[in-house]
């Protein structure tokens, strides 16, 4: 059934449809509405879940880890400084191989104090072992939550779903809510092979010497490799029941493109519109939206970009001292494989609006210039 909702509520209803059993969360703007709604849903008896109020985000993730270890489907949501405070526990959740799903509303790290869109919060957690999804519509937030649990519970790695503050979190749009009966078939209850159970005691997270730790990491990497195919399969299965397709990358008008823009988040949706306008001007441009950055879909990206003359990356994030993070990832994927010049743009930090004209400017700049460039500040006011 189609209805209107803010992106934040799409996350809440996604968690409800997934029948999460434990929610532990601490409020932070712009995430607050997500857990506020879930608290209502639980209090109204519309979801059979334990809602745990905690004193910090670190505790929120610790509670999710405990719940997930006992075999419960656990959920939390956060943003920016809250995600940073969880950092230690993020490593724990991933190395303990717990299929927790978390929503993160992408908000700029302070100071300057900001509550607006910026991907540095979640990209700072890139190496914690979580799968990372960047959603670009409210519909995708809801759908990704459901697909997220299915994938996570197969490969035993947690999933982080991030989306832009305000451009999605507080934007009302039309979302098609899938019927719960369909979702119950798609996402059956979580039944782990091993769980923390007082009647069947085992050790979890015990001291692990060098004879074993190395292999833990190896197995985690294997799980990430496996996740590439699982994300595709479970995305296809989701398409069968809802008609909506999701994969790791979402190319738009890339088939015959001379130049491809590489984007993520809400900028990717605006880029589709910019690409239509550029095409109408006779410019053969495409848009490749990176939806999943971990596991990194290297093979899939190469498949799309291999014949292209130039690439332009738009990053709403920066690794200070080097460049945009999606740009670094892309260049490392190209190296040793294909020789395509990449121009890398930083745009929209701290929620600065990225307009259709801005995207067209960056595209035209790349069309005009053949030289690669690691770092171009789009619209910096200095």
């Amino acid at each position, binding site marked *: 059934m189609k209805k*209107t909702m803010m992106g934040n509520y799409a996350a809440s209803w996604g968690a409800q449809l997934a029948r999460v059993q434990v929610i532990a969360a601490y409020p932070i703007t712009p995430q607050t509405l997500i857990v506020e709604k879930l608290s209502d849903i639980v209090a109204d008896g519309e979801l059979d879940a334990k809602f745990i109020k905690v004193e910090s985000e670190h505790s929120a993730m610790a509670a999710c880890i405990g719940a997930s270890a006992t075999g419960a489907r656990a959920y939390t949501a956060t943003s920016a400084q809250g995600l940073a405070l969880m950092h230690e526990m993020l490593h724990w959740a991933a190395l303990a191989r717990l299929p927790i799903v978390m929503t993160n509303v992408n908000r700029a790290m302070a100071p300057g104090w900001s509550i607006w869109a910026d991907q540095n919060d979640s990209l700072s957690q890139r190496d914690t072992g979580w799968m990372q999804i960047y959603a*670009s519509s409210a519909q995708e937030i809801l759908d990704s939550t459901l697909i997220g649990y299915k994938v996570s519970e197969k490969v035993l790695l947690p999933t982080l779903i991030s989306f832009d503050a305000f*451009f999605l979190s507080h934007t*009302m749009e039309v979302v098609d809510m899938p019927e719960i009966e369909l979702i119950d078939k798609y996402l059956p209850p979580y039944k782990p092979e091993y769980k923390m159970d007082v009647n069947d005691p085992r050790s979890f997270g015990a001291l692990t010497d060098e004879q074993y730790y190395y292999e833990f990491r190896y197995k985690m990497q294997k799980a990430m490799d496996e996740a590439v195919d699982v994300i595709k399969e479970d995305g296809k299965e989701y398409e069968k029941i809802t008609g909506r397709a999701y994969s790791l990358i979402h190319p738009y008008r890339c088939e015959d493109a001379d130049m491809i823009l590489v984007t993520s988040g809400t900028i990717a949706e605006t880029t589709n519109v910019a690409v239509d306008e550029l095409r109408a001007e006779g410019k053969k441009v495409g848009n490749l939206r990176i939806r999943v950055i971990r596991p990194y879909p290297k093979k899939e990206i190469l498949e799309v970009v291999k014949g292209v003359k130039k690439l332009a990356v738009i990053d709403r994030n920066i690794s200070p001292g080097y460049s945009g993070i999606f740009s670094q990832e892309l260049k490392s994927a190209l190296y040793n494989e294909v020789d395509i010049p990449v121009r890398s743009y930083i745009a929209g930090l701290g929620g600065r609006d990225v307009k259709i004209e801005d995207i067209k400017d960056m595209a035209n700049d790349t069309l005009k210039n053949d030289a690669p460039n690691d770092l171009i500040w789009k619209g910096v006011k200095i």
Partner: protein
Amino acid sequence: MIEIRMHGRGGQGAVKASFVLAEAAFQGGKYVQAFPRFGVERRGAPVEAFTRIDDKPVQIRSQIYYPDGIIVLDPTLIEVVDVTKGLKKGGWILINSDKDPEFYDFGDDYKVYTVDATEIAVQNRLGSRTAPIVNTAIVGALAKITGIVTIDAVFKGIDSSIPRFQEENKSAAKQAYDSIASG
């Protein structure tokens, strides 16, 4: 696609107005998008909210710079904010004001309408005289002026996006709708 920008002051309900309008258009079978400029609007400070209405899902994720129409919830904003910035030629401006449209001079490129949404809000006990909540009255007037949404769709929009005082809000919308002369 129709793009509408609302100018108000924090507390007047500009953000809610953008949501009610979007909900009304959705009830009429359209795809919609509505959002505030910043999301932390302070009481009394100038605020902006946006509504996009289209026959297909809206993909533009930036603010509205070239609106088809503008709603001004507080006429004193006209002195401090360039409310017509980017307004398309032939676009409309709907102002909450007790003055006639002729009182406002925006040149010949735009059509100006006024509705005394403050008085209508007060009569319907929406907010107080010093801080009236004028959003639903203004959306009612917009339904008459533009025909983008029907008044019935506005009622449905109020039902599903305003949690309290729905009858008072519907009454305000209808009163504003009726106060605009046809044609």
